[in-house]
């Protein structure tokens, strides 16, 4: 109870019972897993609908409808993220980065979808998996382009005076291989959890004020805040998907060349 409000404990906001599978089992399928599944199916359906033969012809015309949406998003990732951070050589990583963007965006947007009202990334599991995959991916790209020298080039960038290496190597080691995945995951998770808690707070406030006769006059302000924050969270959902994707792209690009 905070200031007369019955605020639910944090576990009730982010933990969901399994839809199937026993509680605490390693394969229990809960609401978060369902959101992730919908992100997979939703993205697939959107791309398949956009890529139908009917919408492909004539290819020379300007795209419309779902095709316009998907092409705009792909062009945004290709030109606004990959070309800007890696250059044309990074276009081969478009599938990974587009998957990241759409997966994060759709799981985030469930924060404002009725009957779900829970961003998939407000649980640490999703961001942690995506950050670990990104971490493994940029290391693999580094090894592919530079061989095993990638590890040394990453912690001791070319051009750094030898006298500074004892200082630079631990810092780079920490920042490149530990802080990067950790910050990627925590940034996404913390932002979405904070947004989720904000929306819950104002929702609880609205519900409580609805039943309070004297404080009913405050309800419109609280409701306006709730609506405004809902719009804000839609922007945050997009922004976090963009930030995660562009940082992944920057990390991949930095792995391709020793001078980075």
């Amino acid at each position: 109870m905070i200031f007369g409000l019955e605020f639910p404990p944090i576990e009730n906001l982010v933990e969901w019972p399994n839809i199937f599978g026993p509680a605490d089992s390693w394969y229990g399928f809960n609401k978060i897993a369902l959101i992730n599944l919908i992100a997979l199916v939703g993205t697939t359906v959107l791309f398949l609908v956009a890529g139908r033969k009917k919408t492909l012809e004539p290819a020379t015309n300007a795209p419309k409808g779902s095709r316009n949406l998907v092409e705009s998003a792909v062009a945004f990732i290709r030109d606004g993220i990959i070309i800007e951070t890696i250059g044309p050589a990074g276009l081969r990583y478009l599938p990974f980065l587009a998957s990241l963007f759409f997966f994060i965006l759709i799981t985030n947007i469930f924060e404002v979808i009725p009957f779900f009202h829970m961003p998939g990334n407000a649980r640490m599991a999703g961001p942690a998996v995506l950050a670990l995959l990104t971490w493994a991916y940029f290391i693999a790209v580094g090894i592919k382009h530079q061989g095993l020298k990638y590890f040394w080039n990453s912690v001791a960038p070319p051009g750094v005076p030898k006298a500074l290496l004892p200082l630079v190597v631990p810092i780079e080691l920490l920042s490149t291989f530990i802080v990067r995945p950790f910050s990627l995951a925590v940034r996404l998770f913390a932002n979405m959890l904070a947004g989720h808690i904000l929306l819950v707070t104002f929702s609880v406030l609205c519900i409580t004020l609805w039943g309070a006769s004297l404080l009913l006059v405050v309800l419109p302000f609280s409701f306006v805040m709730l609506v405004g924050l809902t719009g804000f969270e839609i922007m945050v959902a997009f922004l976090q998907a963009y930030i995660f994707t562009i940082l992944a792209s920057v990390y991949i690009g930095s792995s391709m060349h020793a001078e980075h």
Partner: protein
Amino acid sequence: MLASILVLAAEASTTAAELLDQAAGDAEAVKNPILPTVNEMLYAAIFFIALWTLMKFVLLPRITSVMDGRTDKIRDDLAAAEAAETERVAKLAQYEAGLAGARAEAVSIIEATRAEGDAERRTQITAAEAEVAAARAEAAAEIADAKARARSELTGSITDIAVGAAEAVIQMPLDRAAQGRIVEDYVNSSGKN
């Protein structure tokens, strides 16, 4: 004494063990909601990798192939437009060059025609002037002849009238030839004044 100490120690150790068990139980009961759970990580990994695979082999190629086709077409159209523009500029230059040549030719023709016209005009004027001069000379001669003829006729008439008048006054004939010379001299001298 020693036995009681051992009993107390045993009780204390039992209590400590119980406390440790209880603490461990509490820790298990209070799960950290921030930490990731294995089942959620598993499904997140499965679904994301599935999406990545689909994106790489099925979903993106259908979209990017059309986008690339459109980009190629736009590039080709732009190249064609650029070629057409180059051709237009070349044709314009060619046309302007032709126009300048035609204009120069027209100017030269005009100049030649003008010169020819001037020459012709001068010839015509010269001929006309000569003709006019001849006509004038002829007219002058005719006038002189007429004048001489008129003078002669006038002199004869005046002589006849004057002699006739004088003969009538003096009632005697006069020498017409001598009087004729006097009248002629008078007429000639008065014509000079």
